């Protein structure tokens, strides 16, 4: 099976590249474990809503921030794809677009912002500075990529990336969200927790 059946408005499925990750970690796992028909359907419904209303955090440190603003403004307008509004508070945001260089002094702030966001949360590393330090990777004060600080879902290369490529990266994130098994994994972890508790109790009994 391929990564298919993910409908993104306006773009054909074949036009997306870089699907190896989704194939490996989402589709193959789903095929191995299967899915409960009711919960799976509910998950699809949830994901449809979630992926079409991913609200980014207003967060930019340097040049890429201006391109991020352009994507939000008249010509490119990411509201067309459901990124609707940028939120200034991390409590209300679903995705943080790390637009620009992250330096050592900023790293704790970025980590705190990420921690303040409510689950489920996603990260897009925009531009070569956020990916690897970019033109400043020789510097004494620049973090060599934002993945050293927070986990990243999508990397968008460029210095700065054009608005089209940021939109593509955001759509890739939508595809990822659409393959999430949100309720199912919650149920599984509940099951796992129950098992773990039972195991501990049994062990406790043995110890006594």
């Amino acid at each position: 099976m391929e990564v298919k059946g993910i409908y993104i408005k306006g773009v054909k499925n074949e036009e997306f590249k870089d699907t190896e990750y989704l194939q490996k970690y989402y589709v193959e796992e789903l095929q191995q474990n299967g899915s409960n028909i009711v919960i799976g359907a509910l998950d699809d419904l949830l994901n449809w809503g979630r992926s079409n209303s991913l609200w980014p955090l207003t967060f930019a440190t340097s040049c890429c921030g201006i391109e991020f603003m352009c994507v939000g403004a008249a010509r490119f307008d990411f509201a067309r794809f459901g990124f609707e509004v940028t939120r200034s508070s991390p409590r209300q945001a679903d995705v943080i677009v790390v637009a620009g260089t992250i330096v050592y002094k900023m790293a704790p702030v970025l980590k705190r912002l990420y921690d303040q966001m409510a689950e489920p949360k996603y990260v897009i590393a925009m531009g070569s500075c956020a990916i690897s330090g970019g033109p400043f990777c020789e510097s004494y004060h620049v973090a060599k990529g934002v993945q050293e600080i927070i986990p990243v879902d999508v990397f968008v290369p460029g210095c700065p990336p054009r608005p089209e490529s940021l939109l593509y990266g955001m759509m890739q994130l939508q595809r990822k969200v659409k393959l999430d098994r949100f309720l199912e994994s919650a149920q599984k972890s509940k099951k796992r927790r129950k098992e773990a508790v039972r195991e501990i109790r049994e062990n406790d009994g043995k110890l006594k």
Partner: protein
Amino acid sequence: MELKEKILKRLPDAGFEDAQYPTVTVEPDKLHELASMLCREEGYDFLVSLTGVDWGDSLGVVYHLARSGNPLDMIVLKTATADKEHPQLFSVTDLWETANLNEREAYGLLGINFINHPDMRRLFLNEKWKGFPLRKDYDASPENNPLSIESEPFSDKLRSLSFTTQGDIIEKEKELFGKEEYVVNIGPQHPSTHGVLHFRVSLDGELIRKVDPNLGYIHRGIEKMCESMTYPQMLHLTDRLDYLSAHINRHALCSCIEKAVEIEVSERVEYIRTMMDELQRIASHLLGWSAMCMDMGALTAFIYGMRDREKIIDIFQDTCGARLIMNYNVIGGVMYDLHPDFQKKVKEFIPYMRKIMKEYHQIFTGNVIADERMKSIGILSKEQAVSYGVTGPSGRASGFSCDVRKHRPYAAYGKIKFNEVLREEGDTFARYMVRLDEILESLNILEQLVDHIPEGPYQAKTKPIIRIPEGEYFQSVEAARGLFGVYICSKGDKSPYRLKFRSPGLSLVSIVDLISRNEKIADLIAIGGSLDYVVPDIDR
């Protein structure tokens, strides 16, 4: 030279050099005397740039001074101390207020202590940072300063050094904020700080008592990186300083290098550069206007401004192939020739923009709420603007005539007629209006140039390896936010010994405390919007 005799009469030991600008070298204990003579008696009331340099066996500071009447009639002061363990120089904060943040920068990056400076904290780096990056023997290995995701507490102790009556140096400490004060954080992640700027604001009810800017959240160490790069390599870093005036920054560095190695650029290149600079200025002012209006609650204005900025970006894109970071100027010319559609598109753009400017004024300028929030708020006087080194639209709104294009025309600015937009009020509204009027003035410049671009080569031939002859060079241009200067100190190598960017933004941030005191906290946002600083330009 008359001034030389005056200085020699007062300080017979002073050394003179006739470099690009007259240069005076003095011993550190005589510096303050000379500086105060130049400032108070000779009218050098504008400190253009203050650069800390590690000369190898000594640590020194280079001051570029100018008269506010003619900001480019410059004189250079130099001093150095041989004590590298505990380097101490005298502060000039009492003469020029702009020295305050610049000396803190020199302290943070080079470890020079300034006696009588009221606030010796590191400007960009954390207090615990090991070593001083701009020193030549700095150990940059990451083990010394590992990446940490733990927040460090801020140092609120203002350390100051001063002399006792016996001549000993004593250290005093003062708390930044008293225990009774109510302090609010604005930033570093705040949409109205235009980047990652951090203000700590002490409030009394709604009124601002004190603002402490905390910088360095985007300090990338560009100046240190330049010391290990060749001249063509370092060009691309200038675009990323003030990314909204990318062309202009790069123009400054290119023309500084061209002057130093005596490369003649053709007239066509001068015209192309001038036109690109003006287009860039319009784009930058448009974004500044949009962001300011958005900060004050007018989202429609933001959408309008960004829409029209895209038209300029289209012109850039045709010729340079990029939207924001153009990498267009190179040493000896420009990267590519103009696109065949360039003139046509510029000619279409000029009347369009003139028409749309009226709409801008209708939508926002006359608005009652906007007027209430802008008029007589955040007033900066002309004397303060000069002392704090505030240039660009913000300085001109206070009546400080500081337009480099006018005072020392570079590129094609000498061949055209344009007015310097000046206002007297110095409040938020004046800064707002100067910016909008400058867009019209830039359109006039474009109109005069667009039909007369001369034929010629777009790039001069340069040597494959560019070496700048030994010496010091300073070149300034009028960037969208003020005087942008490049100081190169070369030892004849293919990379500079020390390179400093004089950023207009640092002065803009230094006046936030001054002009927002006793204003309401909501007005701080409007004041910040009207100053229109770009943080990566400040932090470098």
